[in-house]
């Protein structure tokens, strides 16, 4: 499954980072604590969070995250969008909450 497939199946918004949409999604991680993601998320994961700080993109890049989904209609600030475009990490959005997104994506990955 590619990041692109998440957009079409879950009807996600694409905020930024379209260059990275071809990456394979091999797992997922749901957390709003960036120190937790830094320590525990695996490469190729889709990361579900309500955090929108620019550091999200830096940590996604460090951990080779396939895509970030901003849950529950949170809107990332301009700086986060620019960083996401710069790093080529898809920054996606959904009106679903983190629990709902996690459940749906878990099923897609099974």
């Amino acid at each position, binding site marked *: 499954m590619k990041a692109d497939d998440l957009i079409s199946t879950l009807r996600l918004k694409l905020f930024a980072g379209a260059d990275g949409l071809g990456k394979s999604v091999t797992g997922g991680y749901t957390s*709003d*604590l*960036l*120190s937790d*993601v*830094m320590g525990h998320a695996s490469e190729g994961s889709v990361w579900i969070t309500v*955090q929108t*700080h*620019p*550091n999200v993109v*830096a*940590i996604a890049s460090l951990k080779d995250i396939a895509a970030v989904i901003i849950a529950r209609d949170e809107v990332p*600030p301009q700086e986060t969008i620019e960083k996401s475009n710069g790093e080529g990490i898809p920054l996606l959005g959904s009106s679903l909450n983190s629990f709902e997104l996690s459940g749906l994506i878990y099923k897609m990955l099974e």
Partner: protein
Amino acid sequence: MESFRADLHIHSLLSPCASLDMTPQAIVTSALERGLQMIAVTDHNTTLHCELTVAIGREAGLPVLRGVEVTSSEEVHSLVILPDGDARVKFQQWLEDHYIRIPYDPLIFGFQPVIDRDENIITEIEHYLTSSINASLDDIGKMAHCCGGLFLPAHIDRPSFSITSQLGFMPEDLEADAVEITGKEINTGFAAVKNSDAHYPDQIGRRYTTYSLEEPTFEELALALGNKNGRHIISVTP
């Protein structure tokens, strides 16, 4: 130049998590007993006990600075220290414009009373003060500076409500005047200070910073954090 011991992170009873013994009078008395020469009162997301504490401190000969510990939308805590009463009013108004007013149960989270000089309750804040306000860490720093204040991310080495826990690392464009640490000194590129984060009277001064200043004032503190005009941080304790 003289050395001054200062503890710039003290909660009054207005903070829901602080002891009801933390009246402005008790804070000033305890700070003097512990040999502190300047303090700041920093409740969660409110400055409403600053003026009373400043007044009591003035009579007792203890300089008290007006401060607040703000919770950002990222759930990072930062100290804002304000230069004077006008700046405090302006910052308080901005806080009130950015509150997310979630009703809460004081029996679970703790009481939030605003008291007067005679320790009568004037009012109780009806929304939970410690929760995040509708402003980012960056917004809070900008507003602090807009009011002429100082912006210090709090307890950055703690595993909760800190820059490190919430954001993983120091944002590269962080415009802090200093950072507050609780343990070992770490190299962040910012001046590092220690404060007690006292919630109980016997915690006041358990950590403090010694500054080299002409006099214990906000202006001199600002110079010391910037290591300017001979003012500087001498040491942090413990």
